[in-house]
């Protein structure tokens, strides 16, 4: 009986590793930008194309930066949650329209509703690269000092909103 003990132990360890591996999502690559200053940019606005938007304007505020696109399915999925945040007025959401066309983006917002204070147009996806975006939707929580505090990869759902984003936003707002 004793000679089976070691293989059994190895087996249990392997199962342990594999079980942990199964719960990890390979699409969630931890961002090195969390804790660092949000990259600055200056992009034209979606609704008023002659105006620009820069994150500097929001210094002293806690805000969300949401990368989205009209062609993106996950964005439709998280859209009701964003609408809910906008309605509650707890934290302002600024959109970055990622590699999209102006008309389609405007149509999309007219059709489903606009949760954004303002949308910036990142047509070439360069600002996206600076933020380490590799698939929309991605949402960043940015603090009063302009630092990225959290990055949500993929759609924001009710669970993430209530357990991670809102508690963090409240904490940052009280700082």
């Amino acid at each position, binding site marked *: 009986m004793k000679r089976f003990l070691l293989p059994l132990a190895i087996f249990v360890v392997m199962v342990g590793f594999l079980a942990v591996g199964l719960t990890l999502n*390979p*699409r969630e*690559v*931890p*961002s*090195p*930008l969390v804790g660092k200053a949000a990259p600055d940019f200056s992009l034209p606005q979606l609704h008023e194309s002659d105006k620009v938007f820069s994150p500097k304007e929001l210094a002293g505020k806690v805000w969300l930066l949401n990368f989205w696109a009209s062609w993106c399915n996950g964005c439709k999925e998280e859209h009701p949650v964003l609408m809910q945040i906008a309605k509650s007025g707890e934290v302002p959401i600024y959109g970055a329209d990622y*590699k999209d066309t102006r008309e389609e983006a405007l149509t999309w917002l007219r059709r489903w509703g606009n949760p954004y204070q303002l949308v910036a147009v990142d047509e*070439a*996806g*360069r600002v*996206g*690269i*600076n*933020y*380490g975006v*590799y*698939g929309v939707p991605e949402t960043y929580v940015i603090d009063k000092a302009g630092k990225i505090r959290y990055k949500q990869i993929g759609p924001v759902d009710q669970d993430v909103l209530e357990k991670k984003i809102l508690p963090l936003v409240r904490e940052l707002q009280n700082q």
Partner: protein
Amino acid sequence: MMRIWVLMFVMAIPGLVAAQEARPLAENPQAEARLRALAVELRCLVCQNQTLADSNAPLAEDLRREVREMIAKNMSDQEIIDFLVERYGDFVLYRPPLRATTTLLWIGPFLLLAIAGTALVLAVRRRQNTLPEVIVSEADHQRVEQLLSDGAKRP
């Protein structure tokens, strides 16, 4: 004979056309070679098992464009890699750097090899010790002889 020459000429036409189409890439062959060398070391974050060179994902195209621009700006390979690592983390590298968090990844295989080797040596030694010392007596030898000769006699 003439016909073969004509045929060969006709067959070469698509080649000429293709060569013309590829010209923008070949304009700066050195830069393209650098891009290719860099792109095979970098991971596409959308289709994670492909390199930046293989992937047709829009993000991979954008990143190749960025890398191309950085090459045009005369940035060193290390600077370009640092640019991407700053944004996407070590995950963009196909060869992960040796860090505190990646030690298991680097040492793990050798560790497993050492464990397996030690286990093998121990198992072989233990088996040698447990093999009973067999003493073959004179009577046994005679019995073997007897059995073998009996067997040989059979048709």
